[in-house]
């Protein structure tokens, strides 16, 4: 039903409300006009007060406050400006700006004029204090410099004093200089004190400052006068004095200027003070006037406000009353009555009554009643259609093979299909109202709830699979769920359709197990394996491949090259594959490549085979990569070690031989010669024995560096083992003559080698053989160079020697003797003879010297001079020495048991024995094993033994002394005869060498020497033994010179132990 809205406007609810609003507006307009008039009156009055009088009061107060603050800051500034704080200038600027601001803000012209004057005075004050601070700084800088120069002066004088005193020269002058410098310092300290006192006075009360030649200047003048005399000094002091004088003048000028500046500043501050006082007085008088006017205005405003308030309250009450009455009338007639009629009609429709709502009005209420009647008729028609549709869908759901359920949003079943009931073996009644989780296994509950939550928002649908327990056992169900939305778009319920997918799940499980097995197998292979498709995509890779290439199956292929395999790849290049080769060949293939990385280069071997796809075509390749770096390195190392020495990395004998063969082939063609140098490091064995093999090895490496620096690149240095090296000179020429090379090497060894803090000196013995003169094959030349080297060693070491034929004979002899000596030791062919030592006064036997002899079956007795040198050369001397020591100790013990006598037996030590570690232990063992008293054994040393590695040798000797064995110094006078050794060794006996005794009574020089040795020994409380006494004359001469003991053929030759036993018996009988 259409309603003519224009026709009903005046009689409608809207019209009534418009009338009410119009009336209210009118009333409010009247009220507002009245209020406006009242408030305008108040405003005018207030404005008059605030804009004129009150503003003046406030402005004057503000001015007074600002000025007070500024003046107190000025006062503060005047007190602290001498502190020279960096921010003072900034503070002054701020004060000035504020002063200017106040000056421009005041209305009173008299005050403005005074403030302008004050601002000018303040500017003068600030300039004044800047000036004062600058001058004070100058004074203090000069002061600091003067004190520095005084310090310099004192230092110079002190140095002179120390030097002169050390030279034992008189120091009067320097003492006086020191006093003078002290006077200067005292004066300066006094001046400094006065300066600070002066400043302090100013800060405390600047009005007292006056310009004068103050005390400071007076003291400065005195100091300047004193400084005039320091120029009578040495130039250095004079210069310092002149500098001090210059600085004092500088100080004086600055100090005077400072005085003037302070006085000026004081005047400015007084002016400033006066202006401050004036301005404050004027501000105070202005404030008093303003206060009086303000009181009058306050009274007027108060009266106006109280009268206006009464009128406003009356008008408001009248308005409220009229509006209330009019509003009550409209509500009753146009709202309450029609609304109760309409509600009654709606209740009838809800109860199913088909009667229309009867409301006879032409306003909005009538239109609503018509619309409700029409809606009632349409609802009836829709309900019939819905009942038919519901029946149709129910039949469809019930006959579905899938499971269909409907749940509320909490998951409770509202509907279940027949199939669902059959699957779970329950009736609908049993299931309706149950929660979905009742058919869910406990472990899936959380997951299912998560899926349901997904249905609360867009897209309001979700799928999941779950394993459930049904009447047929465990089954897999696949659910498709969808939320049913309300008209407002919010989810109301859930429709879920489930399907049994148990068969598919079982098939998938079987496939996964197989896949895992294959993955385990392929991952267990340590070499990277890649399965690549035709398009170079990675179809599969094992863990090793993932690690190496950083890629995974199915992921893109940025790191793999699809083109032909490169032989070398660097870090940022793609890894090579054999895909293109295999696709081209259609058969397996392999390749090698080198991968360069920051950590070095790695060698890889690639093997690739094709595989077929489902169509029988090549689907791609299976590629296996293997890192063969270590294998290659091992092979290279083996190859290197086969031809080089492991310690020095020099060519070994095999490589040397090869190069030698090449060299002689060339030499034959060119008619040239080839040189072979055999080098042996002197005393290397000693270094090894005393400092250990580690130092020995380092020494060898250092030695190799020096050798290498002495030869050409075309020459070959080879280590033959131990301390032996061979140099091959392929083409002998003028620049590389073997002799020259040998000299260079010997020269290069002049400098000590520093090995881990040890300063080691060593040298070479070098033997040289020349192809073809000294041999035509490698072995012969090497042997001959070796022989020549021995000749060099024998000539005193640190030498070179060319091979000559006769050397070979000597080498053969040396070798034979060494071999036989070895045998002699094992066969006990080395025996001891003993030569008695006689007390020169009593003629009695006091000791025996043990002397080693070699008793051979074929030759007979060999004297020591014929085999000891070889034994020393080969090192066998150590074993021979130990053998002699043990034999002697056994013999002492035997004699002691036979004769009861405690004889002292001397055993000679060799230099090598002394250098080797463990000699004291060997001696102690021999004494202990034979139950000797240590004093029965005397060890004979020679001085030359102590010359090499003195520290170690002396240490060994001291340990022997500690054991209690006696020591004698043999051959005294033939060597270095160092008294310092005598002091350190502290031997019991000194033995005069037989060479001096031999010509006694004939050679005056020998007499002098022997005489001197006896006297010196006695002065050191040593017993003297003369060796080699063979004549009565010699004996008499020695007796006259008070020699203590003698030994020689005059009494006894060296004898076997048995003969000594007989002798001892005779001695005992004659005692």
């Amino acid at each position, binding site marked *: 039903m259409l309603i003519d809205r224009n026709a009903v406007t005046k009689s409608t609810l809207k019209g009534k409300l418009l009338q009410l609003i119009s009336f209210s507006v009118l009333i409010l307009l009247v009220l507002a006009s009245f209020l406006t008039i009242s408030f305008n009156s108040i405003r005018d009055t207030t404005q008059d007060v605030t804009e004129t009088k009150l503003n003046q009061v406030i402005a004057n107060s503000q001015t007074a406050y600002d000025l007070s603050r500024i003046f107190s800051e000025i006062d503060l500034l005047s007190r602290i400006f001498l502190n020279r704080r960096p921010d003072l200038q900034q503070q002054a600027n701020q004060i000035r700006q504020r002063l200017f601001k106040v000056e421009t803000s005041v209305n009173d012209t008299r005050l403005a004029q005074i403030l302008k004057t004050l601002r000018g005075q303040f500017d003068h004050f600030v300039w004044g204090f800047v000036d004062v601070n600058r001058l004070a700084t100058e004074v203090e800088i000069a002061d600091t410099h003067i004190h520095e120069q005084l310090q310099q002066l004192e230092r110079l004088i002190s140095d002179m004093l120390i030097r002169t005193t050390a030279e034992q*020269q*008189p120091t*009067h*002058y320097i003492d*006086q200089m020191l*006093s*003078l410098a*002290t*006077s200067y310092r*005292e*004066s300066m300290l006094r001046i400094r004190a006065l300066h600070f006192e002066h400043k302090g006075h100013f800060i405390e009360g600047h009005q007292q400052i006056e310009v004068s030649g103050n005390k400071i200047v007076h003291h400065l003048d*005195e100091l300047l*006068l*004193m400084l*005039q*005399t*320091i*120029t*009578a*000094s*040495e*130039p250095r002091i*004079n210069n310092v004095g002149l500098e001090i004088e210059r600085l004092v003048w500088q100080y004086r000028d600055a100090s005077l200027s400072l005085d003037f500046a302070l006085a000026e500043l004081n005047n400015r501050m007084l002016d400033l003070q006066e202006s401050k006082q004036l301005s404050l007085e004027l501000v105070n008088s202005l404030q008093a006037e303003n206060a009086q006017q303000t009181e009058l205005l306050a009274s007027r405003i108060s009266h106006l406000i109280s009268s206006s308030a009464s009128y406003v309250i009356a008008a408001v009450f009248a308005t409220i009353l009229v509006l209330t009455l009019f509003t009550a009338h409209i509500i009753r007639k146009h709202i309450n009555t029609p609304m109760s009629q309409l509600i009654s009609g709606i209740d009838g429709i809800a109860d199913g009554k088909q009667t229309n709502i009867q409301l006879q009005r032409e306003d909005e209420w009538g239109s609503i009643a018509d619309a409700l009647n029409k809606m009632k008729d349409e609802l009836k028609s829709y309900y019939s259609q819905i009942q038919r549709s519901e029946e149709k869908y129910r039949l469809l759901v019930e006959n579905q093979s899938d499971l269909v359920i409907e749940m509320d949003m909490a998951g409770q079943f509202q509907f279940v299909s027949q199939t669902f009931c059959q699957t779970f073996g329950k009736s609908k009644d049993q299931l309706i109202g149950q929660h979905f989780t009742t058919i869910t296994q406990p472990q899936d509950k959380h997951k299912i709830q998560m899926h349901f939550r997904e249905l609360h928002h867009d897209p309001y649908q979700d799928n999941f699979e779950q394993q459930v327990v049904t009447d047929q056992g465990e089954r897999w169900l696949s659910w498709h769920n969808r939320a049913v939305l309300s008209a407002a778009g919010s989810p109301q319920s859930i429709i879920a359709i489930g399907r049994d997918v148990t068969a598919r799940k079982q098939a998938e499980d079987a496939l996964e197990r197989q896949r895992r097995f294959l993955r385990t197998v392929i991952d267990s292979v340590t070499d990277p394996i890649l399965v690549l498709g035709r398009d170079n995509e990675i179809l599969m890779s094992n863990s090793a491949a993932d690690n190496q290439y950083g890629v995974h199956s199915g992921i893109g292929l940025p790191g793999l090259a699809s083109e032909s395999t490169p032989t070398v790849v660097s870090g940022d290049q793609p890894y090579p594959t054999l895909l293109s080769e295999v696709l081209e060949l259609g058969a397996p293939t392999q390749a090698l490549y080198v991968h360069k990385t920051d950590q070095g280069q790695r060698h890889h071997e690639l093997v690739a085979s094709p595989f077929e796809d489902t169509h029988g075509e090549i689907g791609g390749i299976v590629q296996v990569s293997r890192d063969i770096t270590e294998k290659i390195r091992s092979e290279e190392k083996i190859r290197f070690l086969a031809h080089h020495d492991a310690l020095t990395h020099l060519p070994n004998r095999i490589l040397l031989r090869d190069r030698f063969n090449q060299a002689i082939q060339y030499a034959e063609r060119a008619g040239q010669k080839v040189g072979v140098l055999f080098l042996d490091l002197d005393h290397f064995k000693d270094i090894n024995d005393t400092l250990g093999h580690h130092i020995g090895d380092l020494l060898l490496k250092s030695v190799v560096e020096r050798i290498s620096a002495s030869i050409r690149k075309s020459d070959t240095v080879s280590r033959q083992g131990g301390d032996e090296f061979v140099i091959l000179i392929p083409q002998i020429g003028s620049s590389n003559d073997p002799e020259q090379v040998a000299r260079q090497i010997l020269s290069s060894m002049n400098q000590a080698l520093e090995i881990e803090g040890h300063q080691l000196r060593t040298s070479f013995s070098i033997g040289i053989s020349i192809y073809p003169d000294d041999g035509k094959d490698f072995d012969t030349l090497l042997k001959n160079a070796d022989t020549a080297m021995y000749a060099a060693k024998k000539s005193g070491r640190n030498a070179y020697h060319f091979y000559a034929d006769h050397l070979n004979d000597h080498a053969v002899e040396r070798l034979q003797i060494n071999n036989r000596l070895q045998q002699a030791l094992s066969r006990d062919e080395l025996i001891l003879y003993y030569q008695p030592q006689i007390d020169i006064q009593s003629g009695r036997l006091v000791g025996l010297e043990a002397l080693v002899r070699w008793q051979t079956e074929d030759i007979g007795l060999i004297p020591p001079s014929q085999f000891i040198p070889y034994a020393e050369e080969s090192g066998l001397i150590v074993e021979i020495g130990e053998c002699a020591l043990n034999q002697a100790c056994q013999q002492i013990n035997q004699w002691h048991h036979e004769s009861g006598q405690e004889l002292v037996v001397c055993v000679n030590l060799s230099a090598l024995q002394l250098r080797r570690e463990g000699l004291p232990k060997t001696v102690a063992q021999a004494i202990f094993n034979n139950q000797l008293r240590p004093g029965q054994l005397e060890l004979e040393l020679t001085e030359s033994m102590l010359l090499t590695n003195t520290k170690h040798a002396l240490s060994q000797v001291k340990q022997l002394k500690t054991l209690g064995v006696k020591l004698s110094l043999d051959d005294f*006078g*033939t060597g270095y*005869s160092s*008294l310092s050794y005598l002091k350190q060794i502290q031997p019991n006996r000194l033995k005069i060498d037989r*060479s001096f005794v031999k010509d006694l009574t004939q*050679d005056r*020089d*020998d007499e*002098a*020497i022997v005489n*001197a*040795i006896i*006297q*010196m020994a006695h002065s050191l409380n040593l017993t003297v033994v003369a060796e080699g006494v063979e004549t009565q004359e010699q004996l008499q001469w020695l007796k006259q010179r008070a020699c203590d003991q003698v030994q020689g053929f005059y009494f006894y030759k060296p004898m076997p132990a048995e003969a000594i036993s007989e002798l001892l018996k005779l001695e005992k009988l004659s005692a």
Partner: protein
Amino acid sequence: MNFKHSLCYLPYLCLALLLATPSWASERFKVVVVMSYEENNPWCQEIKQGIDSVLADTSDIEYIYMDTKVNFAGGQAKADQAFERIKQTQPDGIITADDNVQKMLVVPYLKNQTQTPVMFCGVNANPSAYGYPADNVSGILERGHIRESIAFLKQLKESIAKVCFLAKDSPSGLALKRQVKAEESSYLAKNNGFYLTQSTDQIKQQADTLNAKCDAIYIDSLEGIMDSAGNPLNHLQVFAALEAAYKGPIIGANKYHVDQGALSAVVKTGQEQGEEAAKLLLKAMQGAPVSELPITRNFRGRRIINITTMERQNINPRPIVLRSASLVSMQK
């Protein structure tokens, strides 16, 4: 000498090492010192002290005095004798003190005529006047601390504004005059006259002038001027005559001036002259070429005050002035 023969000295060597006496240290130099003046001249005595303090341990020193203060005319004969003695003794080095000996001995006989190093001291004249330095001659010049002495006097008596100078009319006096002329602008008191004198009579004649013009007098090299009878006087005698004529403070150049009555001085010392000359000579004798030993001068000025004179002049200086000075009382 065979090996065995060489060994026969071994025990002696050993014993010598035990005694460890440095035999090379016993070598001593022969040095001749020729002084221009007489042996009892205080300046000569100071120089001798300086030389002895340096050379006594290492050298045998022979001193020869030419007495030219008291007998200038006989100076050349003395110089000839000294040269004869030098030829006789063949010294390793020679020291010559003051100007007269340079003129009479070094220049005619020694300069560039021998290898023997000659070191001079106490020379007031410009060294070029004697042709120094020469191949074998170097040494130390003598320069008075005039400026400092005047400044020192002002410390004692601030009112001093005009100073006069008095010296014997001699090469030394003339050298002093040249020095004053060259440096007077730096003095703290005005140079109000330089007087060269031959006798005490002249001093007496100038007494009124001196008293009127001079707030103080600086003296040097006055020994040897004549008395009324024509006898040369020593410094003590000259000073007595001066003190009788002039009433104001007298300041000196040498220590003995103050010892003998001058109020104060920043003195040059004969010890410094002698020490420096001796040090230079020692270096030369030890092998340093003379050409590498440049001519030097005295530097060390000692502040000395005669307190007897100070009291007599009624001067009361501040203690700080006294503390940095040596104080002497009048010689008896």
